[in-house]
């Protein structure tokens, strides 16, 4: 298994990135604030800042370090990546299967199944940890979800549209329970319902921000095994959209994203004043809030979990990589189906 390397987050808007030898040098107003050898890095994520020299882009590209640009609010803007790596036959196979509705549905099916199983586990775990907080509605929805997952497994959809519809219904059912999972009594952290573009409350702002981080990791991971992150199965190709990265992250949303956001709120890592509410109702993270989230995220990525399919301990940050590898193996025909990551 590959070693999990570090990710450099550039959050200061006055930072400039330059190359010096094999180092990335971060400077603020011509004063050096940090210097990191490129071989210690896995990726660089920049949040709205002054700029990066072409030298840095070259350095990152040649060392296969993902350099991603994200708006200060966490919206993904773009990535600099080097030459397309990996096997062209693998990519052709990916394109072929993506056009084949039935084959695409089979893979998409497993992504969705993985996601829904993980959603269910999140709720189940909450029920185990806080049996006194479980309301009758919560149990009822949990039952629906369990039933939905069972149906999904027993009678898989053979068309993508049907699958998308079923996924939507089950996701709604899951997010209806989300308010119960938030232990904070603070009304600032009420979830209500999922809103995005823009997120209309603090919980949604956190979810959107964390999902972006996961998407960036998934795209890098896919590229590192030689897959094209833009050609998906569940998500159709659309210019600029990283469809396969979005497919891959489905199963990580509940496990990595939602649970992480819940722990941020429940453990009071973020407070109500770590957010800004704009005139149009959009809620965004402040500088301090974003730093707190990123620091916690980076720590979370170094924790190890047991990977059920690989039967190996894997750092959380390498899960997207492990799953990309399994997806590539499936596309090559080495394994019969794509095994999604399912939490215990």
């Amino acid at each position: 298994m590959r070693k999990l390397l570090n990710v450099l987050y550039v959050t200061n808007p006055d930072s400039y990135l330059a190359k010096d030898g094999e180092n990335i040098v971060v400077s603020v107003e011509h004063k050096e604030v940090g210097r990191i050898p490129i071989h210690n890095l896995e990726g660089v994520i920049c949040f709205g800042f002054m700029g990066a020299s072409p030298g840095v882009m070259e350095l990152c590209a040649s060392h296969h370090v993902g350099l991603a640009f994200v708006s200060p609010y966490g919206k993904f803007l773009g990535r600099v990546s080097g030459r397309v790596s990996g096997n062209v036959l693998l990519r052709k196979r990916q394109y072929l299967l993506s056009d084949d509705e039935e084959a695409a549905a089979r893979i998409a099916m497993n992504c969705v199944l993985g996601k829904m199983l993980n959603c269910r586990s999140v709720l189940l775990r909450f029920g185990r940890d806080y049996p006194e907080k479980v309301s009758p509605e919560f149990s009822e929805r949990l039952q629906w979800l369990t039933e939905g997952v069972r149906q999904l497994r027993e009678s898989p959809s053979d068309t993508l549209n049907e699958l998308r519809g079923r996924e939507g219904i089950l996701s709604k059912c899951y997010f209806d329970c989300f308010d119960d999972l938030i232990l904070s009594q603070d009304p600032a952290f009420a979830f209500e319902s999922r809103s995005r573009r823009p997120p209309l409350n603090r919980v949604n702002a956190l979810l959107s921000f964390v999902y972006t981080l996961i998407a960036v990791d998934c795209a890098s991971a896919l590229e590192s095994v030689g897959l094209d992150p833009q050609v998906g199965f569940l998500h159709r190709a659309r210019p600029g959209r990283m469809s396969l990265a979005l497919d891959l992250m489905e199963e990580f949303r509940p496990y990595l994203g939602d649970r992480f956001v819940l722990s941020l709120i429940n453990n009071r890592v973020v407070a109500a004043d770590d957010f800004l509410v704009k005139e149009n109702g959009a809620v965004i993270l402040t500088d301090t809030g974003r730093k707190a989230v990123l620091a916690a995220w980076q720590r979370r990525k170094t924790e190890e979990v047991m990977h059920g399919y690989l039967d190996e301990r894997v750092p959380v940050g390498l899960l997207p990589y492990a799953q990309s590898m399994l997806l590539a193996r499936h596309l090559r025909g080495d394994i019969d189906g794509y095994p999604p990551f399912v939490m215990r």
Partner: protein
Amino acid sequence: MFVLVTYDVNTESPEGRRRLRTVARICMNYGTRVQNSVFECVVDSVQLMEMKTKIGEVIDPAIDSVRYYNLGKHGRDHVEHVGAKPGLNVEGVLIL
């Protein structure tokens, strides 16, 4: 692994000063400068070998010396810092 690299390059001649700069530059590419001629490097065995080879080609073994302390995987736990310039931990959280 975590390797501490220290060097002493004879700077009495212009060539010596050139060697010193070159050695410093090589070390900079592999690790973090913690003191003037002391570097902490988080490297794998291939990278360590590369660094050793590059430095070996530069120094004059008759008058210069380089020491590599291999502190292993948990090397950082054995380091205590007092005073200014604590140095950047490349394995910690990097938010700049």
